[in-house]
């Protein structure tokens, strides 16, 4: 229809192999700006594959199907180009980078993004102001951010750091890859608060999780079940609760 | 004599030795060890005779030897192996073209008897294959060249122990070859317990096949001059090795431990733990050379050499070496040289131990990490007893 903006993310019949093995087998999904979609599924279903493939990681073979981000072919872009276009992946296992402070890393990433958007770069002072403000969201003190990227951070702290980065880089599409794994109740609450604070009419979320717990904090708009490489069921929150109660076996045999 | 006859091989090896001579300090591989004790002595080749009496003492209690050689003569049966006159060698393991191959060439030329073991695929041998090499040199300086060959079939598991002993002034120049088939698992122990005046030079060559693993223990418990080499080829994917060594020296003894592990294939791994405790004016040298050729993705290596200097004139030279030609590898090596932690010594003294007892205990604890991983209770007991006796020998240390 003329004049209508394309969806933020449109995946059509995606087939992806890993080491010759088909993992995603005809996955389709549409995410519009302002929406939060949760994707659940048994292990090995392809959840992490989806997140990493969308972010542009090597090691995945695109067999067929399309992925459009705001109307353009996402798969034609290199990982950093996808990032600059506004795609953000919150990693399940964020790496450590010795010798580079969190501050320095973030400022470099932010300024690269700003440059790509034709905006002016932030100098050190303005950046520090921005970081301090956003860091309150996830309660990460300056002292920790002075350290090397994720250096000595606990699992929970690393996830909070991912949310901080998201807050600073302000992506249009945020992919959260099992952000809740390894978190206790308090950390989960804090991370969820941070994510909720970033919800926006212009931003879309794909939250990948194994448990319903996170969803009780986030309250997504849509819940999908990924099994055997495709979305087999879609619904609202009650779908997640049913899975939690009955397990994934309940879905076996579903089309 | 035909080109491939044992005699021809020996002749060629002798020619090679004549060209190279006994290795000396001019060679990088022998940088820290003088071989004057070898080249400056007139050696009489061991001759089978009535030397079997020496075998009745000094063995490891609880270890049944498959073969025992007294002055190169096999005593009794060959147990689960066979004794030959000529080495039916594993092809290509010993590279005589190297500049420091002198002693290996000499063994290839002069070995008197060979202990051969073939373990068939799938076999799991109880206990251990054990060979004892004993030389009675109480008359004049006597030399011998023991040789052992072990072939292990696919997925077989075996322990092999070589025990070197002597009386008087002996020189044993040993070569051992191991070939591990796919999935095989071998634990090799070289227990060198020669007399105080003797010289020991030994070299182990191993080729490890797909997914096979080799653990070695090199225990330097005797001899005034000891050179113990281990050369491993991780030839196929999944091959792995763990090399251990222990040298506890006193007086003016000198021990040189030399290892070289070559990662030829992807997903191979190696580990090394060599420990030394040096008292009085003893000298130790350790070389741990790891080579990774191009193409070895996913290979990893971890090597540690720790040394305790316990004597005023003790000296240790250690050189862990990494030669890496491929980027998808993980390598770590560490070497430490130091003395007993004074805080630990004080702690034990505050619990009533004398300073000497405290130091002995801490030194034993230091050595135990290597002894604890020996296979067989009999070996652990024997080595621990030896360690205790060695450390208690003199009150001052």
């Amino acid at each position: 229809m003329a004049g209508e903006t394309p969806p933020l993310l449109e995946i059509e019949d995606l087939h992806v192999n890993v080491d010759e093995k088909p993992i995603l087998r005809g996955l389709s999904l549409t995410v519009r700006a302002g929406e939060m979609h949760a994707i659940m599924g048994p292990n090995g279903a392809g959840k992490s594959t989806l997140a990493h493939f969308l972010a542009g990681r090597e090691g995945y073979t695109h067999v067929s199907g399309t992925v459009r981000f705001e109307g353009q072919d996402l798969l034609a872009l290199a990982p950093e180009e996808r990032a600059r276009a506004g795609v953000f992946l919150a990693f399940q296992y964020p790496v450590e980078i010795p010798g580079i402070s969190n501050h320095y890393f973030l400022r470099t990433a932010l300024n690269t993004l700003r440059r790509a958007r034709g905006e002016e770069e932030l100098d050190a002072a303005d950046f520090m102001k921005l970081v301090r403000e956003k860091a309150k969201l996830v309660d990460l003190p300056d002292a920790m951010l002075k350290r090397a990227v994720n250096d000595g951070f606990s699992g929970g702290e690393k996830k909070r750091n991912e949310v901080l980065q998201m807050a600073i880089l302000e992506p249009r599409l945020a992919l959260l890859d099992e952000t809740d794994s390894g978190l206790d109740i308090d950390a989960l609450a804090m991370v969820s608060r941070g994510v909720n604070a970033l919800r926006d009419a212009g931003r879309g979320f794909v939250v990948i999780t194994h448990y319903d717990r996170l969803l009780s904090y986030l309250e997504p708009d849509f819940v999908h079940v990924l099994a055997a490489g495709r979305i087999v069921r879609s619904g609202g929150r009650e779908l997640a609760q049913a899975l939690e109660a009955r397990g994934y076996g309940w879905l076996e045999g579903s089309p | 004599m035909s080109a491939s006859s044992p005699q021809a091989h020996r002749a060629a090896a002798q020619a090679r030795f004549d060209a190279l001579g006994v290795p000396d300090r001019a060679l990088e591989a022998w940088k820290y060890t003088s071989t004057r004790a070898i080249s400056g002595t007139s050696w009489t080749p061991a001759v089978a005779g009535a030397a079997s009496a020496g075998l009745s003492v000094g063995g490891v209690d609880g270890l049944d030897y498959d073969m025992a050689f007294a002055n190169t003569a096999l005593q009794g049966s060959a147990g689960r192996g066979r004794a030959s006159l000529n080495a039916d060698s594993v092809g290509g393991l010993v590279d005589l073209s190297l500049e420091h191959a002198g002693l290996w060439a000499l063994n290839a030329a002069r070995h008197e008897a060979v202990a051969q073991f073939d373990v068939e695929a799938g076999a799991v041998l109880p206990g251990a294959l054990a060979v004892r090499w004993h030389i009675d040199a109480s008359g004049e300086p006597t030399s011998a060249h023991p040789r052992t060959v072990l072939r292990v079939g696919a997925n077989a598991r075996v322990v092999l122990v070589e025990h070197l002993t002597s009386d008087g002034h002996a020189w044993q120049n040993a070569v051992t070859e191991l070939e591990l088939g796919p999935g095989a698992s071998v634990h090799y122990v070289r227990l060198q317990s020669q007399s105080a005046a003797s010289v020991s030079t030994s070299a182990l060559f191993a080729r490890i096949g797909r997914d096979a693993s080799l653990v070695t223990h090199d225990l330097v418990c005797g001899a005034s001059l000891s050179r113990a080499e281990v050369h491993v080829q991780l030839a196929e994917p999944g091959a792995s090795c763990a090399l251990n060594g222990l040298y506890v020296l006193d007086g003016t003894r000198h021990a040189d431990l030399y290892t070289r592990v070559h990662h030829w294939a992807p997903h191979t791994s190696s580990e090394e733990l060599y420990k030394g405790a040096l008292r009085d004016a003893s000298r130790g040298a350790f070389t741990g050379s790891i080579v990774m050729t191009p193409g070895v993705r996913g290979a990893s290596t971890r090597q540690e050499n720790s040394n305790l200097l316990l004597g005023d004139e003790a000296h240790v030279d250690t050189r862990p070496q990494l030669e890496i030609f491929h980027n998808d590898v993980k390598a770590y090596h560490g070497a430490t040289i130091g003395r007993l932690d004074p805080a630990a010594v004080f702690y034990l003294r505050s619990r009533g131990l004398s300073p000497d007892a405290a130091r002995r205990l801490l030194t034993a604890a230091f050595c135990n990490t290597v002894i604890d991983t020996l296979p067989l209770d009999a070996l652990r007991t024997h080595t621990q007893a030896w360690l205790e006796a060695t450390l208690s020998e003199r009150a001052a240390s």
Partner: protein
Amino acid sequence: MAESNEKPENAALDAVLNREYEAGFVTDIESELAPKGLNEGIIRLISSRKGEPEWLLDWRLKAYARWLKMTPPRWQNVQFPPIDYQDAHYYAAPKSTKNAPKSLDEVDPELLRTYEKLGVPLHERARLAGVAVDAVFDSVSVATTYRAQLAEKGIIFCSFSEGVKDHPDLVRKYLGSVVPVNDNYFAALNSAVFTDGSFVYIPPGVRCPMELSTYFRINAMNTGQFERTLIVADAGAYVSYLEGCTAPKRDENQLHAAVVELVAHDDATIKYSTVQNWYPGDKDGKGGIYNFVTKRGKCAGRRSKISWTQVETGSAITWKYPSCILLGDESVGEFYSVALANHRQQADTGTKMIHVGKNTRSTIVSKGISAGHGQNTYRGQVRIQSTAEGARNYSQCDSLLIGDTCGAHTFPYLEVGHPSAQVEHEATTSRISDDQLFYCRQRGLSMEDAVSMIVTGFCKQVFKELPMEFAVEATKLLGVSLEGSVG
């Protein structure tokens, strides 16, 4: 082995390859070249052109005689075609400067323009940054700045040739006292034909108020550069010295065999930093500099300290082992190094720490980066003599491999002869992890920037020891040198 990878993102990178060596140009000034070849006559020529006293000519001739009896060393890990020592010029003076200029005004403007291209605008930079620059153009010192200011404190900072003329007793006292003539083949050669370098003397109790620095340039074809530097810090003195080099693009290999001697007396500290950017040869390894340097520091006094910090990204072949002899009780030796071998470079570098006095300490941090077909070898020796009671050493040698075709080799030699010594050595070899690279790219950094960032993080421990302005230059240098290397 494929030269580079077929992966699509790297094809794009490969296109951004090999930024032309910035300083690759040649000055037009005619140089007076001595005829090619090395013999007594040439040495006498050099000595007389410099107006040297008899004792120094004698010293040179003795060194030459020694050199003739020595054979060039062979190293396992470094390959290069044999050098024809007769096929080079050993002396080149720019024609336009018959007598050394007394001030910058007397310097040939063409020469000054050369310095500007090299980033050494003597008047501006020297004034703003407060750095005194002793610029060596080929074999003759041309200008020295700020001598007056330094002279007020009794600090001597001049060219080696001037040192010989103005302070002959000092030079004679220390020359060859740390690196004896027969120490090695290249030291002997240098002792015979050294052309010029720096001479620094800091009197007792004086802290040199500025960083002293020097620039080099090998210009005329086939001129071996034989720098000779001597730095002496008297009791309680402090000096920080920077050495940074560039060289023009040439097709013939050029030999650089320098000797640097440092002497620190009681409570004195000498900090010597090098950011080296010699021409590395092109992608195929053709035409780079051979950098064979003997650098040694003698911690002669109690509580003296000598620190070597270096960032090496140039040279076709690098062979250098800055060393410390820890004679004085409680003296300290330090070595911080980043060495990059890319394309077809070969580096065999490291350090020697010789502990002789009591309670001495040494620290070694070596970071090697290998990319392309580069081969990087660390060779370090820690020797604890039997007199070195209470000696402490800590060494850390890390290697980073980038790509499938490079090599990193680590050969430490730890030789310990005192029971109270504590020596600890650790080495790791790894690659830049795919996870780290992807993480950076997912945050918007290009592959190049990601590599650059990760490598800078890897080198941080060393960069932090460099004086500020050098640290910035070093970071940039590393980035440029690594372009196109990721696989």
